[in-house]
Every structure is written in structure tokens, then in C-alpha cells.
């Protein structure tokens, strides 16, 4: 039987706030253990949570940008479970009344656009972090750091609209980009500010009823999302083809082995006994606030891609690559402002610039070569001061040293040779130095023109103006 895969993703995005969701502790990553805590997030008796307004604002911005509906009246709920990194014994979350209902995200798959529906977006607090056993010290102990406890998370729950591991990956990548554009989450999966759980089930092709699903946790990279779902699909297919039933359970992805494994039952107790959080009053989001947030939504990647094509005349491919990261698109636009030849800028940004960024693991805004510096380099090429070939070396030096293009060109004497008398002299020497090749050329072996060009470039350490070398060579070889 042919099966169809049905996937829904639950994405936890850490909101870019300064302070935690219900107290004034900082949210900084990698502080000293338990140094960013207070009686509220430590769950000490007699304390009261007070909601961070900015966390609500960022969730509203996300929901509105994805065409969701803001629930005008909503409240928080307690999700009860026992775990050492959850000091209160419950997580403050939202259950029956999430802040945002519905919404959608468009993704591009094989050149076509697909709309993925969202079920809801709600606000909740994060739990702490545990390090187990010998990873810190004693193999028989676990070690708990509560700095992350109470950090605001937005949980974005998609409908079961995704049909393949690749689609799930594309959806997550798109979601990350949109969150980055909205400035609500830094999207750093390694540091855990974007985390993903996948609900996966199979059903016979052509049927509508959903099959029994498993939930895969611990997916901390795009690659893992795709791999884990692909593995889980095949595992479930095997179960079904053997005539057995898929067991509804939570599974963990083991990235090293590329497999999903059932979580131990003792870690899992899906009996959360939700009830309304009595320590927090309900929210009634005023229409004025919603309107204000709606006005503040910046240009999103799809709109920016279209504008890059229409305003700058870029090929769709270039526009895609550039808008995939807001910082990259900003870098491109800042450079074009100073050097208004968009396609040339695009080539450099997608080529040499991106390569250096990847090697150095820099974000565009951390690069030693600023848009101003790149524009300066491009002007030197445009004015004929340096050749395009030498510019590539100059760019590498700029990136390595942080110096300007002009300084590097002056220091290393890289100014292009465009003096025709001087060039003619060099070429005459080259021809005189290679009598055999010259004779062969004159006898009809015209391919040797390239050889002479090469020798001339070599004789000038690459500084000769290539167009002039070509013209002069042809004249002298006549």
C-alpha cells in the first residue's frame, strides 16, 4: 500500500525580550549557572508573577504578520508536571485560550507556493536546563541551572499540513526567516532559541482520517528535522506493513545514529491537569493595541523578494538568496545605495562575501567589510583602477585585515596598468621571449593568443588591464 506522510510542527521560539516573562531577571544566554534567578522564577513560596508586556507585543506582532486572529480575551493556564528543572511543579502556559488563533505561512516547494495553516500561537515560560551525570561531574547526579526558567517562549503550532520531510524543513526555514524579519526571535537553533517538535503519522494515500501519530522531540537543526522525520516515516511504514499498529508515544531523535527512540515511560506522564492560572488576571487586548502592532510590522521576506526583482531588476534566484536572511538583504541594500549597480553588488554579496562569512561564521552585520567598504572596492573596479581579478584578492585582504580597498591597493601597488605605451613595451618583450610560440601563431595556431595574454598578465603580476592587453596583442600580432 502507498502511504502519505502527515506532519505538523510545534516550534518554540524564544522571544527577544530583555527580561523574563513573569519577573525582572535577565534573559542573557550563557550566564553563570543560577545567576539570573529571583524568588519568582525559583518558585519560592509567596511570590506572584507579573506579565511582561513586551512578550505579549512580540507574540501579537508574529500572529498578525501571519494573518492570525488575536483572541481579544484570553488567559493563562497551569500545566502541571514534575521535573527538577521546573521549580514550581507547573509551567505557566496557555491552553484553551491562546493569544493567537489560526494564521498561515506560505512556503515555496519545487517552484510552487504552498500555504501551511497554523492552529495557534501561544505564550508560555521556559523551563530550566539540566546537565546529566558525568557531563558535569558525578554520574549518579543531575545538575540544574534555572537561568532559563521563566524566559518567554512563543509556541507556534502548525496544522498537520506538511507532507514530506523536505517540506517540514522548508517550513521551519521560512518560519525562522520570518521571525528574524519581525525581530521577535534570533532564530539560533544551536543555542536553543528556536526548538522544534514534530508530529508524524502515515495514512493510506487517498484517505482523510489521520493515522496514529508519534511526537519527535529534540530536533535542534534543520538537518535533524528532515532526517528524523524521514527515519520516522520509514519506521512507521515498516510497522504498518507488518500488520502492526503505530503506538502513540513521544520519541527522541538520536542525531549521532540518525534514529528515533521511544522516550522512557518514566520521563513521560502526559497528564498535565491544566487549570486557569489564579495568580494572573485575564488579558483583554485593546483594538488600539492590535492596530498599533499591525502598523509596526516590517516588510516580510516574500514582499522583499518581489521588490528586489522589480526595483533592482535582480534575477529571482538572486532575490531568493539575498532575502533568506534579513541581515543579508539589509547589507545588499546598504551597498546598492552607495554603488547603484544592483546585479554587480548581488554577485559580490552572494559570492565572495557569503563565502568569507561562512568561513568565519560571521553574521553579515559582524563582517569586517562593511557596505561602505564593499562599495569603495566596487568603485575601484568600475573606474578601472584595479582589475576584477585583483579585486578578489583585495577583498580577501579587506576581510582579513579590516582595511579599506584603497589602502590595500596603494600598499601593495595593485593599481591596474592602463598605460598603453608601457603595456606595449611589456607585450613586445613577451613576444620576443617566446619566438617558437610566435612562429606557431603566425603559422595559424591562433589559440596561442591566450598564452600570450597569460604571459603578459604574469609579467605585470596581474595588474595589466585585460581589455587593453587583448587589443594591443591583436595589433602587434598582425
Amino acid at each position, binding site marked *: 500500500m502507498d502511504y502519505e506522510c502527515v506532519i505538523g510542527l510545534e516550534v518554540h521560539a524564544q522571544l527577544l525580550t530583555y*527580561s523574563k516573562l513573569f519577573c525582572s531577571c535577565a534573559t542573557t544566554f550563557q550566564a553563570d549557572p543560577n545567576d539570573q534567578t529571583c524568588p519568582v522564577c525559583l518558585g519560592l513560596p509567596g511570590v506572584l508573577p507579573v506579565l511582561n508586556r513586551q512578550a505579549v507585543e512580540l507574540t501579537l506582532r508574529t500572529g498578525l504578520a501571519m494573518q492570525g486572529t488575536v483572541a481579544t480575551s484570553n488567559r493563562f493556564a497551569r500545566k502541571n508536571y514534575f521535573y527538577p528543572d521546573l521549580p514550581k*511543579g507547573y509551567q505557566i502556559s496557555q491552553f484553551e485560550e491562546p493569544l493567537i488563533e489560526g494564521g498561515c505561512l506560505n512556503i515555496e516547494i519545487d517552484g510552487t507556493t504552498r500555504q501551511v495553516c497554523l492552529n495557534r500561537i501561544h505564550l508560555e515560560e521556559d523551563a530550566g536546563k539540566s546537565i*546529566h551525570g558525568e557531563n558535569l561531574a558525578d554520574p549518579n*547526579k*543531575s545538575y540544574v541551572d534555572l537561568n532559563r526558567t521563566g524566559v518567554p517562549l512563543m509556541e507556534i503550532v502548525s496544522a498537520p499540513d506538511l507532507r514530506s520531510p523536505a517540506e517540514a524543513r522548508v517550513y521551519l526555514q521560512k518560519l525562522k526567516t520570518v521571525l528574524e524579519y519581525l525581530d521577535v526571535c534570533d532564530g539560533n537553533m544551536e543555542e536553543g532559541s528556536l526548538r522544534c517538535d514534530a508530529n508524524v503519522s502515515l495514512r493510506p494515500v487517498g484517505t482523510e482520517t489521520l493515522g496514529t501519530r508519534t511526537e519527535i522531540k529534540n530536533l535542534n537543526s534543520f538537518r535533524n528535522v528532515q532526517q528524523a522525520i524521514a527515519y520516522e516515516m520509514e519506521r512507521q511504514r515498516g510497522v504498518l506493513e507488518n500488520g502492526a499498529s503505530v503506538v502513540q508515544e513521544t520519541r527522541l531523535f538520536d542525531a549521532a545514529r540518525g534514529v528515533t527512540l521511544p522516550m522512557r515511560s518514566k*520521563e513521560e*506522564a502526559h*497528564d498535565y491537569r491544566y487549570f486557569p492560572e489564579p495568580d494572573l488576571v*485575564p488579558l483583554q487586548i485593546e483594538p488600539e493595541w492590535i492596530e498599533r502592532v499591525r502598523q509596526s510590522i516590517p516588510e516580510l521576506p516574500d514582499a522583499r523578494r518581489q521588490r528586489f526583482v522589480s526595483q533592482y531588476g535582480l534575477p529571482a534566484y538572486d532575490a531568493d538568496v539575498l532575502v533568506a536572511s534579513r541581515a543579508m538583504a539589509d547589507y545588499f541594500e546598504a551597498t546598492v545605495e552607495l554603488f547603484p549597480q544592483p546585479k554587480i553588488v548581488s554577485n559580490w554579496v552572494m559570492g565572495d562575501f557569503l563565502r568569507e562569512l561562512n568561513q568565519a561564521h560571521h553574521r553579515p552585520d559582524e563582517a569586517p567589510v562593511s557596505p561602505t567598504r564593499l562599495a569603495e572596492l566596487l568603485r575601484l573596479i568600475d573606474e578601472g583602477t584595479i582589475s576584477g581579478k585583483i579585486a578578489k584578492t583585495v577583498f580577501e585582504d579587506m576581510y582579513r585585515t579590516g582595511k579599506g580597498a584603497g589602502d590595500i591597493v596603494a600598499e601593495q601597488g595593485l593599481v591596474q596598468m592602463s598605460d598603453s605605451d608601457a603595456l606595449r613595451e611589456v607585450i613586445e618583450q613577451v613576444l620576443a621571449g617566446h619566438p617558437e610560440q610566435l612562429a606557431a601563431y603566425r603559422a595559424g595556431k591562433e589559440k596561442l593568443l591566450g598564452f600570450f595574454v597569460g604571459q603578459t598578465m604574469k609579467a605585470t603580476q596581474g595588474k595589466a588591464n585585460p581589455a587593453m592587453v587583448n587589443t594591443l596583442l591583436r595589433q602587434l600580432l598582425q
Partner: protein
Amino acid sequence: MSDGHIIISEEQVAHVARLARLGLDADEQRRLTDQLNTILTYMEQLSEVPTEDVEPTAHVFDLVNVYRADETGRRAGGTSLASQEAALSNAPETEQHFFVVPRIVE
């Protein structure tokens, strides 16, 4: 002993105890079931109050929209409101500024 009115069974008490990781022996389990039934039976009197004309409430105060600004604490030289030392001071065991608990996963 309660008056024999059963609202919560011994199995439910065992289940809730497990969720809270409380290790109850058979005696404790029986005793707590009785006590909980006494309490719940007493609380059941509330269901005699007529509530047809009462709006559902999520909170005892007639208040909505209580927020704080997104600002961090101002403890000198740091960003949190409790010192790390104070945060850890009630812990039975600490190690390199972590709370220490029995190993959670194998």
C-alpha cells in the same frame, strides 16, 4: 474515616501521587484517600450554591491587563534580583553553582 462517600478512589490517589513523585506506602495511601474524601465531601457543599445567574470567572478580582515593562533588575553589578549565593542557599546540595538532584535520565 470519612462517611464512606467516595469522590476520589485509591487508584486516583496513587496516580496523582505518582505524578508528584510521592512514594506512598499502602497505609499512607489508604489514610490519604480517606482524608481527601473527607475534604472533598466537605467542599461539595459548594455545589449547593445556586450559580445559574453567575458569570464564569477566571479570577477573583475584577481586574484585567496587569503588565510590567520589559526591564531587568537593578542589583549592582548584575542583572538578576537574587544573588546567585542566595538562590542556592536553600539547596541541600550544590556543585559549581548548579542545584544537584538524583540523576534524571539514564
